[in-house]
């Protein structure tokens, strides 16, 4: 049995390296994206093998689902009309400059990586990190899933900043581009039915992941990513929200995650004296509130990132992009 898992792990590791190499080296960009999506799929399996199911869930939703859709849409906009040669980059354009000394970075990186490998292997084979501290405080953290406890309580401050990063990415995207709200090719009955059928299931699964996250793998990011995927599917099926919703209501939903986080941070600062210090009896409820708000924001932000522009600017800049 250990032999079997060892073979499985080695094969998975080699496949990951091979996929990464091919995705980065093949001249055809479309092929590269498909290989990258497959890479994400295998990454999720690797997280499972490393006993990190929370990470695997996040990777499954974001890495294998959303990033693939984002890349596909970007590739399509990069070459809107040309179908020539199946997105192949002409070989002479593929590589920077005249790298007649291309071996130089290759050899440098090889040496550095060998060194890094040596350093990694020099680490002690047994180390518990912070798992004893996490276990000792899990009881009063408000969540029995240690990853959720770390994300929302022990290191909740990182999570606060990180939700702001997501909002910031959207601000950046919106300042660059206007949304393409008119692109509504008829989805066809199959896609339309698929979107209608799956959307409620997406929402149910997101709610399930959010709920289960307190005591088992799951949580706000995974749930938010699933919700975002539902939004992306609807957008792909040609659905567009009414323009009335695209102004302040949309912005309110986008900021509800960071806003609730900041409010809780301020309140805990006032009451408990330390930012994000939850009273142990209410920690569970607070975490659930924070996670619910974060899930909604993350989901809508991811879908808005896929839409790829500011919906407010739609009418003015229609012929611009």
């Amino acid at each position, binding site marked *: *049995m250990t032999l*079997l*898992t060892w*073979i*499985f792990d080695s*094969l*998975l590791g080699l*496949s990951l390296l091979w*996929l990464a190499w*091919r995705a980065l080296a*093949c001249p*055809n960009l*479309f*092929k590269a*994206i*498909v290989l990258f*999506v*497959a890479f994400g*799929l*295998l990454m*999720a*399996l690797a997280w499972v093998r490393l006993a990190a*199911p929370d990470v*695997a*869930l996040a990777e*499954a*939703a974001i890495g*294998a*689902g*959303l990033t*693939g*859709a984002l890349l*596909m*849409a970007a*590739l*399509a906009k990069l*070459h809107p009309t*040309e*179908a020539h*040669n*199946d*997105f192949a980059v002409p070989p002479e354009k593929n590589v920077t400059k005249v790298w007649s000394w291309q071996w130089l970075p290759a050899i440098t990186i090889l040496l550095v990586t060998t060194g890094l490998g040596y350093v990694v292997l020099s680490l002690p084979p047994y180390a518990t990190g912070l798992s004893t501290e996490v276990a000792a405080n899990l009881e009063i953290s408000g969540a029995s899933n240690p990853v959720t406890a770390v994300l929302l309580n022990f290191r909740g401050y990182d999570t606060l900043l990180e939700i702001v990063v997501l909002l910031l990415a959207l601000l950046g995207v919106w300042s660059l581009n206007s949304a393409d709200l008119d692109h509504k*090719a008829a*989805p066809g009955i199959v*896609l339309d039915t*698929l979107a209608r059928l*799956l959307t409620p*299931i997406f929402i149910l*699964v997101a709610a*399930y*992941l959010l709920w*289960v996250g307190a005591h*088992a*793998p*799951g949580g706000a990011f995974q749930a938010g990513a*699933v919700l975002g*995927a539902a939004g*992306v*599917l609807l957008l*792909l099926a040609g659905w567009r929200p009414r323009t009335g919703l695209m102004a302040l209501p949309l912005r309110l939903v986008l900021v509800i995650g960071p806003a609730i986080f900041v409010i809780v941070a301020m309140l805990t600062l006032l009451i408990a004296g330390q930012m994000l210090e939850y009273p142990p009896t209410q920690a569970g409820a607070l975490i659930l509130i924070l996670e619910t708000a974060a899930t909604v924001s993350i989901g809508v932000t991811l879908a808005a990132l896929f839409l790829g522009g500011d919906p407010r600017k739609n009418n003015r800049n229609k012929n611009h992009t």
Partner: protein
Amino acid sequence: MQPLYLALALFLLLNLGAGMWRVLRGPTAADRMLAAQLFGTTAVAILLLLAQATANAALRDIALVFALLATMTAVAFVRRAWPNREANHESK
């Protein structure tokens, strides 16, 4: 039973590796996409087998998310990234 689950998971992983050939070979974008679709299903099967082998119920949730998102990339491909003319690359 555990060795069987693991052996089958390994077998499916090998299958997946073999399918990679189609991604590399093409010839059309649709062929590559089909292979990716098969990878998704295979990954779901591997996850279900591992869930049983390691008695870890959480892995079924991951399989569920995979199954749910199985359409995403393919739909994005069909609706956005598929070039309109491809016929002239088909004949080999």
